[in-house]
């Protein structure tokens, strides 16, 4: 055996046979003593003298034994064990300190772990598909921005010409509500796809087959693919379901496949239905998204270049010269604008961690000065500096280990709460929080964080040990050496930075709170009280014309009239906060042509009455505006002001959707009224120009598109609380819809509240961080001031004995705290002044330099600082001079 290996093996053996080895050693040493004794006896010493001399000559028994041990064993391992035992003991000695340190760390680490687990799930984890980085999504970009919304002609163009991309597949933007009408009607989430979809995402199949290109044929049979979950729940995991028929939106579909359990589709879906596009369509409706896989060896840049060159070569272009096609990685496309937001929150929560660390550093520094004598004694009895350093590191690592364990536990509680704030609006995290969890990366992050803190803060106090001269420390009486300049200054610095960091968080949180207040005070333009929304999927052959939809809505209205308490009911495919179409319009006014895009919706005549949207001029729709009547349109005030400024648009003609394809062809319409503006795209968005037509006059092509891409929204207003009336309303609507399911029941207040969920999420998170930071900073100030008072008890006693009154002593201590507060606030303010730019995009109704916030937050923080300093100050002023002087 290699000698060093042999030695290693021997040490390893010794690790487990320490006692045996020690006994052996004792035996050998006593033998040695015997020899010595014999020799001294020989020289003529008395037996007692010989024994004494032998012992002296042999050296201290323990030293010999120790040096043997060192040679025989892994010294560091034995010492590490000792260090840890010692650290445990040290923790037990000062439970107050230990608890404070652990809680501080747990808050910092817990908050960080919680936010990082979201960052991890959304930004870092690869998509759960084969070769996820090669999946790209098609975008249409122009100066106004970019959209993943695609039309059939664009899709066709990519299929024919995007040679760098394979498995090009179209799928719905979002889940559509699809009515499962076999058995008990139920609304399920479905997604329209074309046949390449399952290949692109590498979907495993539990039963049956994937879709094939023949399923894309508009004239082919209707087929459906079920998800594992739906198959299990709704079809009792029927192994023979392939080939059976199910009724979907009152049509019969044949089940061809069931996906595997582990398929996590994007968007989430319970079943898939082929689009069955007519690829020759010239329809300019941008209603689905398209993704594909980069061919092997092709980079994203190459694929983009290829796409650009083919687009310009084939003149597949738009009037807009800036218009271009663009490929983006699917993950980037999915994550979108939440990426900077999440990183910003991660940054903010790092501030919390920094403050926690600052507090910990302070605690350790204070403790270090208290323990200086202990370490001096250790040094005096032979502990090397390395050994003391190791012991300190062991202590802080142990603290960090406890702190992180508690922190991880906290984060496990915090993450579900975090998700509850923002249901479903974070990409890649389902409403139930699936996709989140403590994976290896998160654990690694937490471990690395706490290890770094433990090492840094273990060594920091050790720096002060280095300066300790043993003799000095021992000579100085017990408690007062802590007031060394270096320590005092570093403690102040730590407190000042804590205050600065918390001020930054406080200002950020205040701005977001003001934003939320501003959002809540925005009048949406309609009344949400006692209004409930429900969806009903209408896809299928029954509803292909505006007249048929209008007739069904009329029927529903008659049925609901029989329910006491129901005030009014309306229906539209474009409810507030649901997606809405934008269409072009042309109008000739005083010889000049107005031509632009505006939002468009078709509503049942009672829409404005149900939502209590005032009609400002002209008239609303009524039952006479049916398919045979002259074509009419209402516009909102924003549109009137923008296109007919200072003029009267009433009676003007507009033509909607000209040149967009046969689906959109519409008669010219006469403007019959102007309705008040509503914030339908979100409270923070200004009202968009909107054209509204009566449902009975909706062009058939549009009805077919709308039923395909979204459900019909029922809007019901009741005289009393909606809750108790819901079962009757739903039953009546189901009957009117000849057995179609009613789903997504939500009150309008809920919808409004959800529309600002993202802002609330940011606000709550940042406020929580700010509150934690504030508490930690206050604790920091308090700790340092209280310590300072305790240290200076004697000095204060002398001052008071010499005639300083209580108020003066109190002022002195308060001033000390205030100076720290002012310095911290000054640093924090100047940093915040630049950092607020980062949250500019989150703000609404408040400027980044909001005077109120920039005044109130520092004042508040100063008040907290003074309060934290006041308690020790009061204690100082209550000191009895005699006691204080006798203190030592």
């Amino acid at each position: 055996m290699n000698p060093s290996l042999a030695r290693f093996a021997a040490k390893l053996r010794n690790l487990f046979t320490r006692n045996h080895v020690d006994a052996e050693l004792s035996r050998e040493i006593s033998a040695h003593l015997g020899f010595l004794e014999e020799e001294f006896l020989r020289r003529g010493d008395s037996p007692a003298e010989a024994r004494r001399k032998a012992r002296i000559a042999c050296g201290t028994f323990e030293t010999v034994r120790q040096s043997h041990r060192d040679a025989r064993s892994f010294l560091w391992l034995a010492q590490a064990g000792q260090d840890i035992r010692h650290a445990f003991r040290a923790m037990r000695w000062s439970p107050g300190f230990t608890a404070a340190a652990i809680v501080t760390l747990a808050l910092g680490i817990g908050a960080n772990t919680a936010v990082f687990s979201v960052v991890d799930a959304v930004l870092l984890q690869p998509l759960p598909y084969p070769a996820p980085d090669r999946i790209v999504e098609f975008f249409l970009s122009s100066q106004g921005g970019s959209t993943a919304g695609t039309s059939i002609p664009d899709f066709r163009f990519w299929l024919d010409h995007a040679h760098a991309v394979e498995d090009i597949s179209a799928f719905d933007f979002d889940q559509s509500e699809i009515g499962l009408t076999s058995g008990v009607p139920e609304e399920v989430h479905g997604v329209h796809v074309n046949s390449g979809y399952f290949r692109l995402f590498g979907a495993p199949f539990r039963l049956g087959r994937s879709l094939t290109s023949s399923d894309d044929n508009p004239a082919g049979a209707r087929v459906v693919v079920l998800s594992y979950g739906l198959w299990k729940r709704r079809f009792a995991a029927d192994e023979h379901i392939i080939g059976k028929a199910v009724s979907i939106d009152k049509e019969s579909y044949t089940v061809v496949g069931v996906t595997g359990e582990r398929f996590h589709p994007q968007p989430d879906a319970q079943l898939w239905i082929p689009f069955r596009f007519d690829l020759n369509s010239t329809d300019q409706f941008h209603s689905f998204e398209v993704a594909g896989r980069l061919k092997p060896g092709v980079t994203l840049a190459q694929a983009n270049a290829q796409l650009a060159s083919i687009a310009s070569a084939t003149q597949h272009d738009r009037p807009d010269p800036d218009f271009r096609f663009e490929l983006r990685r699917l993950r980037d496309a999915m994550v979108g604008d939440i990426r900077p937001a999440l990183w910003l929150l991660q940054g903010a929560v790092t501030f919390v961690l920094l403050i926690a660390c600052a507090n910990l550093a302070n605690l350790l520094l204070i403790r270090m000065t208290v323990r200086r004598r202990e370490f001096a004694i250790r040094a005096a009895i032979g502990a090397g500096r390395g050994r003391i350093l190791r012991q300190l590191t062991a202590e802080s690592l142990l603290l960090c280990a406890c702190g992180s364990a508690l922190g991880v536990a906290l984060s496990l509680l915090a993450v579900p709460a975090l998700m509850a704030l923002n249901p479903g609006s974070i990409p890649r995290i389902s409403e139930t929080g699936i996709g989140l969890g403590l994976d290896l990366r998160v654990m690694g992050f937490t471990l690395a964080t706490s290890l770094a803190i433990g090492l840094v803060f273990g060594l920091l106090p050790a720096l002060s040990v280095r300066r300790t001269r043993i003799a000095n420390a021992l000579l100085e009486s017990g408690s007062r050496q802590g007031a060394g300049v270096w320590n005092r200054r570093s403690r102040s610095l730590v407190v000042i930075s804590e205050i600065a960091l918390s001020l930054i968080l406080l200002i950020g949180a205040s701005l977001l709170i003001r934003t939320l207040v501003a959002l809540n005070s925005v009048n949406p333009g309609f009344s949400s009280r006692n209004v409930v929304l429900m969806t009903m999927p209408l896809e299928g052959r029954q509803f292909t014309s505006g007249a048929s939809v209008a007739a069904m809505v009329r029927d529903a209205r008659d049925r609901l009239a029989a329910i006491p308490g129901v005030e009014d009911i309306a229906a539209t495919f474009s409810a507030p906060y649901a997606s809405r179409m934008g269409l072009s319009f042309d109008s000739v006014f005083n010889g000049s042509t107005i031509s632009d895009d505006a939002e468009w919706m078709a509503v049942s005549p009672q829409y404005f009455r149900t939502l209590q949207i005032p009609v400002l001029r002209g008239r609303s729709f009524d039952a006479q505006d049916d398919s045979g009547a002259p074509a009419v349109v209402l516009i909102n005030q924003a549109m009137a002001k923008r296109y007919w400024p200072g003029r009267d648009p009433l009676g003007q003609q507009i033509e909607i959707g000209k040149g967009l394809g046969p689906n959109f062809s519409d008669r010219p319409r006469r403007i019959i009224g102007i309705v008040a503006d509503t914030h339908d795209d979100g409270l923070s968005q200004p009202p968009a120009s909107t054209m509204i037509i009566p449902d009975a006059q909706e062009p058939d092509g549009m009805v077919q598109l709308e039923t395909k891409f979204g459900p019909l929204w029922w809007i019901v207003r009741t005289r009393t609380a909606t809750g108790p009336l819901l079962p009757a309303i739903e039953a009546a609507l189901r009957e009117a819809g000849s057995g179609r399911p009613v789903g997504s029941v939500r009150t309008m207040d809920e919808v409004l509240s959800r529309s600002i969920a993202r802002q609330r999420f940011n606000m709550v998170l940042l406020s929580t961080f700010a509150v934690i930071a504030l508490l930690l900073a206050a604790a920091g100030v308090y700790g340092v001031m209280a310590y300072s008072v305790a240290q200076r008890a004697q000095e204060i006693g002398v001052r008071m004995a010499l005639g300083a009154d209580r108020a003066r002593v109190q002022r002195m201590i308060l001033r000390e705290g205030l100076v720290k507060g002012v310095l911290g606030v000054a640093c924090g303010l100047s940093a915040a002044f630049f950092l607020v730019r980062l949250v500019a995009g989150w703000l609404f109704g408040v400027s980044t330099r909001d005077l109120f916030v920039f005044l109130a937050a520092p004042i508040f923080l100063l008040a907290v600082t003074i309060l934290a300093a006041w308690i020790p100050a009061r204690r100082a002023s209550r000191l009895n001079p005699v006691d204080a002087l006798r203190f030592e």
Partner: protein
Amino acid sequence: MSSKEKKPLQLLQGTLDLIVLRNLATMGPQHAYQIAGRLQQVSGQLLELNQGTLYPALVRLEQHGWIKGAWGKTENNREARFYTITAAGRKALEKETSNWRRMSDLVERLLVEGTRA
């Protein structure tokens, strides 16, 4: 493992191993006290040997497998651990001796050169 480095006899450490091996090779099995006595005798008291260095050296040598220790009795019927050099120990001794010679030769030459210059 700082304590080893701090020992003032560090330079001697390797040398001590060599001396102990040599001693065992020529004198046969010996116990620690004998080794210490013999060292002191040979060096003419020049080498003040600390027991604290000898025992670790013995342990180290045994861990290397160069010597082997066994309990036995002395002529005076005292209990003692007798160390014997092993075959590996002899080989190591040979190698270390030639190393030492080369080294001391080199040092000597360098010192001589130093006086000349």
